[in-house]
């Protein structure tokens, strides 16, 4: 199936979908699909290019496993993916839309916590005085662990959060790491981003599977989407 078509994966809903549609429009690429709900489509004038609508995380997996040749998704998800997947994908272009930051947020009431050095000290306070680990809610375990490690923060426990991470400090964690675009949600949930607390600056990106990148047709598509 893969040999017959060039598969482009795009996000099926949300901000990234709108951004991708705008990009395609700008490049005069019209996606044709059977209905609005259909998750498969073709590009007008390019019968060999198949457009597959997917979840943004799934796009990274699909590129890593070679199901798709080219895809548009978030840089955060690519960087968070397992090394075995990440190493099989090339980042071709970072767009200036779909922007958000993965940040470290602590309760506003932690007045003594302003930067990573403070956080490191507080994590030891939990460990030494309370005999427990500081709990960190996140959807981004790998990126969080990497950042914590670079800041000398070792005494913590990561709690998986699947959604509504911003209020998890109220009931299951002490602090959190989460994506923030405007910062509004952070403030509204009585949180603050610590100084030097940006783990990753993310935006929508064009990716290609390394196994496909040298193919003539793929190069053409990449040129179309990056010109």
């Amino acid at each position, binding site marked *: 199936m893969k040999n017959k078509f060039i598969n482009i994966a795009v996000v099926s809903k949300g901000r990234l979908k709108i951004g991708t549609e705008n990009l395609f429009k700008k490049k005069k690429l019209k996606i044709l699909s059977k209905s609005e709900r259909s998750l498969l489509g073709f590009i007008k004038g390019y019968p060999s290019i198949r457009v597959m609508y997917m979840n943004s995380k799934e796009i990274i997996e699909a590129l890593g496993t070679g199901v798709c040749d080219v895809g548009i998704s978030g840089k955060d998800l690519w960087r968070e993916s397992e090394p075995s997947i990440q190493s099989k994908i090339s980042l071709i272009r970072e767009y200036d839309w779909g922007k958000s930051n993965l940040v470290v947020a*602590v*309760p506003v*009431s*932690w*007045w*003594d916590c*302003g*930067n990573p*050095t*403070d956080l*490191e*000290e*507080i994590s*030891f*306070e*939990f*460990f030494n005085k*309370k005999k427990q*680990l*500081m*709990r960190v809610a996140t959807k981004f375990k790998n990126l969080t*662990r990497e950042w*914590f*490690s*670079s*800041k*000398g*923060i*070792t*005494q*913590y*426990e*990561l709690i998986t959060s699947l959604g509504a991470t911003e209020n998890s*400090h*109220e009931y299951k*964690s*002490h*602090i959190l790491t989460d994506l923030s675009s405007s910062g509004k949600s952070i403030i509204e949930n009585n949180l603050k981003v610590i*100084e030097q607390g940006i783990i990753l600056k993310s935006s929508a990106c064009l990716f290609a599977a390394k196994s496909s990148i040298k193919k003539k047709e793929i190069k053409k598509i990449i040129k179309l989407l990056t010109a």
Partner: protein
Amino acid sequence: MKSRNSFNQILKSKGFKNIELDNIIESRHILKRSGGNFRQYLFSFYDQNFTEWSLRPDLTISSVIKFIQDKKKGRTKWWYSGEAYRKSNIKSNSVVKKQTGFEIYASNNKNKDDQEIIQTSVNILKKTNFKKAQLNIGNIQIFYTLVNKLDMPIRWKERIKRHFSREFYFNQLLKKLSTNSDINPVIVKRDKREVEKLRKQDPNKMFSGRTLKEILDRFDVKNYSDPRSESNKKNVKIIKDYFKISCSIEKAPKVLNEFFKKNNLNLFISSDYFPIKKNNLKNIKVIFSSNIGRTAEYYSGMVFNIQIKIKGKNKFLVVGGRYDSLIKNLGYKNTTAVGAAVDLNIL
């Protein structure tokens, strides 16, 4: 194989009892020892009761847990051999580490037991084909004492001691210390105003796992009790210079005392502090090195390694040291411990 059998003979003849260690350990014990960051190196899984287990990442942790579970009392000497399983950031590293370990728990005489562990390690070296080796000895307590004597905020002292074993981050910390870059005066000024409003509230009120008192106490220590000091640059230089000290073990007390005197630190180290006092132990050069023992966070006193050369590269055949606080940190009574591990992968 031949040399491994002779290692076992040495350990038996020295009175170490052979024990079998569990292959899997409850992950919480490992995380308690090494923190959540260590999870990235573990091979872990859940059982039917949702308890998380890990393949043992090193044999020391298994041994300590066995010591606690067996409720051992009094001086205990044992040895074990087997594989440990740990992921690595270095692609070429094997995830399987073959080791022989030996330990003495609940020392009556710490210096004597330190000597015994080092002497046994040297005897093991003698059973291998390595003709040239160097025995490096250090002591983390000397570094801790030095830091305690420096004129700098207590929280900085604690931080520097805490990160002795994380060399990369440790160097970043020194940089921060020398530039005083952990406090932003603009933010501190703003926060001071806000904090004053909180002082009248119930000190036991909880904010995400911390009481208001804990938050305010730390705020005060950080912003009032620990003035920013111009002498921090000098302190950083002293620490960096200390790590450059490497000399024959016989000269170590003299060199260290001269270093303390030069830096106006009221410290004195006697030769009794060192478990080995001769420069030569069975034709092995003995060196005092201030910069060793930085690979495991649980070392707390004497540390040593036996360095050999394989194809021109330095390798460590034996690594060991004292970890007196580890057993207590895992929730058992305060018990001293000293031990070493032979890296069987490089034989």
